[in-house]
């Protein structure tokens, strides 16, 4: 019983030690930064968009501009196809 208690305490301390060895917030932040897309990969976001074909047609009439309507396979904003 006493051995079990000691074992539990040792295990708890060991786990606590391992936990403290997990990388800290700065490491996670650096990892987050490293995973950001590059400017070149986000260049597409410089294109001005409207939300729907209805809105595009309405604005086209007002501004006398042509509409570029593209229906693509996937989500343009997320990049998932």
């Amino acid at each position, binding site marked *: 019983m006493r051995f079990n208690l000691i074992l539990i305490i040792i295990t708890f301390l060991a786990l606590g030690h391992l936990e403290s060895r997990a990388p800290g917030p700065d490491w*996670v932040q650096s990892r987050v930064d490293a995973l950001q897309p590059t400017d070149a990969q986000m260049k597409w976001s410089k294109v*001005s968009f409207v939300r729907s*074909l209805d809105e595009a047609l309405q604005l086209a009439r007002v501004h*006398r501009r042509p509409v570029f309507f593209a229906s693509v396979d996937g989500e343009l904003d997320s990049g998932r196809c």
Partner: protein
Amino acid sequence: MGAMGARAGLLSQDPIIKTLNEHYVSVFVRKYGHDDVDWIGSDRRAQVEDWKHNGLKVNPPPLSTDAGVFRQPWTTTEAELRLYKTLKLKELAYLVEHPEAPGEALVGPVHASILSPDGEVMDVINLPFRGDEPKFVYAQLLRAVEELGTPPGPPVRTLLAGPKEPLRPGDLALRVDVRFIADPVALDDVIAHLDGTAPANTITLRMEAPVREWIVLREDEWRALLTPGRAPQAVAEKLLGRFVPPTDQLVMDEDYFETMQMETRAYARSAETTTVQLHASARIKHSWGRNRDYKVAEFQALGYLEVDHASGAVNSFRMATMEGRYGTPGHQIPFGVAVQKDAGEQVISVR
């Protein structure tokens, strides 16, 4: 051409960006082009039958219209249907012989149209074949502008990126960035058979474009993470469900996760702030898109959530994969996912 290809190709060309912004009103909508029933592809139909046979879910019932059949009816508006019908009647975007499969027609809504200010179709761009040739698209854009005599001007409207759902007080908007660690990555994509044993039906994609999405945690959801112990299942699923490689659109089934766990541990506490550590891991089979095969995404992730005592608000949220792998045994590609509190650096949002 898909969204990824559009972003990395056409829409990364300076002359095209300039022309669209100065002369056009641009709109993009998403379609499952190749999954629309009107796409006469025997391999796709076989795949759908395979899915059904194996008990996998297929997308909701399609919408049958005069302009074709749409597998994602919720993405198709009346205005779009009118346009698709016009294109079909004029045999513009809808009847193009497949160059690699004579006798088969590539039809459906994946295309681009140039419309006059009054909504008349002026030109059609066949994206699957011309989308990777920006010079042709650029020429078509210029031709329409010259024909109309449209003077240059500032963009008419620019959307901002961000969560697709409206934010409420207390909500925590998180930006999720996903990418393969080494890109471009050559990724074999089995387009017909679940077991991937048919080489003729395997294509290789080069994945170069990262994915950026948003998650919104309601106040009760992120506050639940402050309590050490196992994270609530719903919160963990909401957060970790986005930890998949930058491939298909997400369609989460009931059996999305093979394994998943997320645990919160106390990390630091001061008079001003409380910080908790988030440990997560999961194994997700490739069921999040249309290409259901035997690939699996696995990851371990670590994160920190810091809350300010005085304001009760989240100071920071950051989480990242320590390790992520996607593929089949022996053929795994490393991928990474980063989540952080949205700093308001917003770009665009289209549906």
